[in-house]
């Protein structure tokens, strides 16, 4: 079959790229090896934040946040997005100083979305937080959403806009003849002038087929969810020098994570929980929220995500071929950027440039290394 573009991967970025391309008149075929949102995009902590971002990501994150605040207009679904605010707590004076310095640096760059709050302000906002937390960065307007629902919404919207999806179709081969890409999967072959690699933790495998391998490490990032508890915390809570992502949903369940690693079984596409590491996560959560001591954990899981050596993604044009683009390697913080990456790729494809600064994400940084 033929299409205007071929997108590999139907996670949040693949679906976002498919949506934005389709709406610009370029109707893609999307090949997905399992089903949309099967891996990192569908099973992550759902954090929607500008807070704490790598400075290279901040402009993209700020732009994405504007889309999140009007997500219903973009994909006709609210994606379970709650603008509950996010805080990053300091557990010592040293950590508090670190946070203060960060906010100052951001302010110098012209970004005001992060603000410092004192210990008493923090305690007022979240009475259940441990007394030893001495302050925090607050990011109003940040929040959380439902990952699987979000991917489904982007998927459905892109189908309505003219994208065609094929599930259970892992890419087996990529060829270029003249100016045409030919992608082969188990049951299909598709030809198109454009190729976009959104294959997540498998992104480096596709990049390698294009002669530009990236040292991407598949990791299994762990989360745990509690039983339903009476409401005690509205914002999403993170820590400074310890891994933590802590949020309570409207139904009372509490999701705890942050990026501690389990084991990946790439052959069976399964992430396994490392229970000793998870115990570390549990201690952090309990230290910061002492009332969670008796809360029962109902389930833990580990989703497969791709991590780059510098922990920022690959976004932009291929270094080896024209008419090919990459969007992968989000290293555990790609979900919030989902709405904007599709827009960036659409800009690159239609206008050969984008307003947002993406030089730091170029694939060349690995090719030259």
């Amino acid at each position, binding site marked *: 079959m033929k299409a205007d573009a071929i997108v590999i991967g139907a996670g949040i970025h693949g679906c976002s790229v498919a949506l934005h391309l389709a709406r610009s008149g370029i109707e893609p075929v999307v090949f997905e090896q399992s*089903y949309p949102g099967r891996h990192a995009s569908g099973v992550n902590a759902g954090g929607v934040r500008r807070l704490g971002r790598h400075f290279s990501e901040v402009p993209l994150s700020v732009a994405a946040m504007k889309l999140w605040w009007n997500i219903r207009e973009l994909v006709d679904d609210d994606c379970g997005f709650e603008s509950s605010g996010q805080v990053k707590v300091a557990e010592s004076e040293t950590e508090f100083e670190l946070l203060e310095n960060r906010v100052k640096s951001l302010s110098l760059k012209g970004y005001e979305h992060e603000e410092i709050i004192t210990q008493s302000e923090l305690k007022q906002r979240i009475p259940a937080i441990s007394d030893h937390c001495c302050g925090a960065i607050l990011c109003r307007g940040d929040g959380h959403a439902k990952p699987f629902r979000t991917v489904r919404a982007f998927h459905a919207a892109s189908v309505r806009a003219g994208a065609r999806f094929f599930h259970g179709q892992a890419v087996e081969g990529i060829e270029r003849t003249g100016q045409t890409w030919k992608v082969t999967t188990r049951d299909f072959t598709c030809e198109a002038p454009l190729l976009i690699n959104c294959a997540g933790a498998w992104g480096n495998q596709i990049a390698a087929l294009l002669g530009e391998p990236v040292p991407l490490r598949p990791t299994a990032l762990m989360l745990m969810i*509690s039983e339903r508890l009476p409401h005690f915390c509205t914002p999403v809570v993170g820590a400074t020098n310890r891994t933590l992502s802590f949020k309570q949903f409207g139904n009372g369940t509490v999701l705890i994570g942050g990026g501690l690693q389990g084991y990946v079984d790439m052959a069976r596409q399964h992430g*396994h929980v490392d229970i000793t590491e998870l115990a570390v996560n549990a*201690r952090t959560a309990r230290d910061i929220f002492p009332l969670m001591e008796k*809360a029962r*954990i109902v*389930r833990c899981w580990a989703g497969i995500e791709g991590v780059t050596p510098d922990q920022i993604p690959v976004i932009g044009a291929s270094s080896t071929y024209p008419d090919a683009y990459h969007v992968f390697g989000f290293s555990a913080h790609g979900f919030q950027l989902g709405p904007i990456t599709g827009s960036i790729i659409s800009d690159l494809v239609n206008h050969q440039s984008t307003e947002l600064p993406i030089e730091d994400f170029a694939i060349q940084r690995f090719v030259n290394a």
Partner: protein
Amino acid sequence: MIDDRYELLIIGAGPAGMAAACEAASHGVRVAVLDNQAAPGGQIYRNVDRATNRQNRILGKDFVKGRSLVEQFIQSGGSYFPGSTVWFLDEKRRVGVLIDDKSFFVDADKLLLAAGAQERPMPIKGWQLPGVMTAGAGQILLKSAGMVPNGRLVLAGSGPLLLLLAYQYLQAGVKIDALIETTPRGAISRSLGKLFEALPATDYLLKGVKMMLAVRRAGIPVYHGVEGLSAIGEEKLEAVRFDTGKTGFKKVTDCELRADTLLLHQGVISNIRLPLAAGCEIEWDAGQKNWAVTNDEWGRSSDADIYVVGDGSRISGAEASALQGRLAGMHASHQLGKISESKLEVLSRPVVKSSKRHLSIRPFLDSCYTPSPCYLVPGDDTLVCRCEEITAGEIRQAVRLGCTGPNQVKSFTRCGMGPCQGGQCGSTVSLIIAEQLGKPMAEIGCLRVRPPLSPITLGQLSEA
């Protein structure tokens, strides 16, 4: 105090687990048994060592047989940890167990999983109403607390346990207002073909006949081949209704019976959470209509160091389970170098023969008591996931939207995300998907199992 390693670690102190422990310990294997109940016996022999004479009379001779096995187990010399909860098990055979609020990790050369069966969910409209419980729950209350239901009582479903409970209630003097059988009409006559195979287990057949005669003599109204069973009520159960059924030779339609307690049952299915967590292969048993753990004649699973035996591998009954436990126990003893191959051969021969006899009734029983499709795959407005209140209709809608398996349905609907983690809904979800897509169960699969295998507090996990 539990050690951090044993030669043979057994999970489950029901007939299979106890028999395996006794066997292995007798050959000098260092055994530990973990069980979540306060006393050994599993479900079938629950509380047998504490039962009063009156309870023994009510519960029957088979129950009392369990007592000797329990006594043998207690004398066997292995380490035994009652009231412990296995909350973690991975493919490396590492076991996480809670004992007295503290978590321990234990490793084993050989692991034996004998966690038994659970009742097959019986989703009918209104099954979430207070007053609707399972026959198994009724039997647990009878065995552990000597409690019986109050008010108007209806027993409904299919399977030997339902009849057994009716018989036990009769012995206890409980009035049963109706016994509703949902086994499809003709199941027994269709099963007669299997009767010949079942003859070596004539004692089982005679027991069933005796119980049925007692129920009839007590004058309890019995309805057969009942379809469209539902529970009616506002805040709690008020009545039991069904569309069609037969009493004797008379057809009955649109029947409504006032009720305060409805005990449902449609057989038992293997509880496969532990084998799944350990990565053991499972297969769909079309005869029993449930997932079974693939194992060899010694009970070894797809992992040669993990034995899965008893009702927890496939439904076998108490006596066959104990024999399977013995075979696994002696095989593990051989693998651990305690007995020779020839000794294993000699010891196993009579056990294998006895096991075959006890298993010969199963094809007949399975066929007789095949759950009716309408109670396996419920109508749209019946709840499937009780924790998250998801109906069969919502699941079918998810399949129409492209879901091809229970894990995807879970992501779409939240079905299976509640505290029971799919224990009550998992089998139903897979059956609904299989029916709608016209695909075999082996292709549909079952819900992925993740730790904890039962809820653990954040505090307990922190100290793990």
